């Protein structure tokens, strides 16, 4: 049995855990229908409006920065495994790669993306 078929086994095990657990819970747990009970849980007062609205852009900027470095990680892992045999050439070539990506971080830092600005007026 190869590793990739064991991957399927583990994946199915995870799905089975959720399916069996939820199935059992739905079977044996009590159920009572009450509109009030399904209201959003917010401080006891009736909720004002929906939560599906505009959200602060700060989180989104972090996500973009993350994408940049996450792709870098994908490229760096294969290099990391064979860096011993690559020797000094491997170090120099990847140094340029890392410097260029660090410039991206430095740019974002300079632009103030990493600062957490207050949205309320001062």
């Amino acid at each position: 049995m190869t590793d990739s078929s064991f991957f399927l086994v583990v994946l199915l095990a995870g799905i089975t855990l959720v399916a069996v657990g939820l199935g059992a819970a739905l079977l044996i747990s009590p159920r009572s229908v009450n509109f009030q009970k399904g209201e959003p849980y917010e401080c006891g007062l009736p909720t004002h409006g929906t939560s599906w609205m505009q959200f602060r852009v700060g989180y989104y900027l972090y996500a973009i920065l993350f994408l940049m470095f996450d792709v870098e990680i994908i490229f760096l892992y294969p290099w990391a495994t064979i860096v011993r045999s690559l020797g000094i050439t491997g170090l120099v070539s990847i140094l340029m790669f890392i410097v260029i990506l660090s410039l991206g971080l430095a740019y974002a830092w300079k632009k103030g993306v990493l600062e957490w600005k207050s949205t309320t007026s001062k």
Partner: protein
Amino acid sequence: MLIYSQPLELTKLLAAVDSFLQGNLTPGWAVLVKGILVGILILVVYALIALALIYIERKVAAFFQARLGPNRLGKYGVIQSLADMIKILIKEIIHINKADKLLFFVAPLFVIVASVLAFGALPFGMNLHALDFNIGVFYLLAVSSLGIIGILLAGWSSNNKYSMIGAMRSGAQFISYELSAGFSLMTIVVLSGSMQFSEIIEGQRYCWNLFNGHLPAIIAFVIYLISGHAETNRGPFDLPEAESELTAGYHTEYSGLQFGFFYLSEYLNMFIVAAVATTVFLGGWMPVQINGWESFNQAMWYIPSWAWFFGKAGLMMFLSLWVRWSFPRLRIDLLLNLEWKYLLPINLVNLLVMVVVVLSGFTLTDLFPALFGK
């Protein structure tokens, strides 16, 4: 190299089961039965670790605060978490009026499946692993970051402002610290020259990676622990579910077993972080051995490899509880600053330092080949 006697290892048992299946069933059925056995074993160990961890966490937390903790059910309250599990199973699953029904339902699935997939790749002992990919470390990073999709789905589909804020915080926190975790593990991949867990462990036979790579490895270890705690939303980094401001964060609207799934995966993720730290930095299941001291090595091998693994992972988990009860919670901007302005630049430099150390032969195994073997 001498072959040591290993009385409590499970390798013989596994081989016996395997040959029994091969001998009595056709090849197709043997593979199927083996797959089912592995699946059941993974789920059983998964549930047992979660139950044990919940009990230990509550007990340790109680001792840190000079309380007694759970002490009613069973001797010293040991079956408390089992009772909690039954309680959570028979609680009503409340349907939320304004929720996005499908995504609300799918979210716990993502969280659980991600943690089970990561759990399957852990080496628990000699030959005790379900998956041993040659890209092990990379696979682990990939599947464990699937969990955040579940958390974001949970927060968004609940249609609750607390859930939304909690999920957004959790998302920003997780993806930020994912980078640090990736880079610090990469530092060790540079050192050991492999991404496969079994090879990484074999390479630490006489010298743990933590000591082998000395300065850069220790920095990577500390950064991995910090980012591991942050990724699991624990310790001083638990602001996605900061109960005093957000009730419960992204799982505010979840009830019954659906909440239980989030709870379960949180504890398992904590274990996974501890287990990866153990495997990659602290020698994994390999007993402590010293090159040339054959009788000492034999004595160490009498302790089975899975006991070594759980012992070391247990120490790592105790550390995480200790941190949790020792530091106040961070603010979200300070938390993200810590990652982007300190840990990430340090990590990038640290990676290059490790490459220089490895290439110039300054690792302990290169400097003292007689002492640490090669």
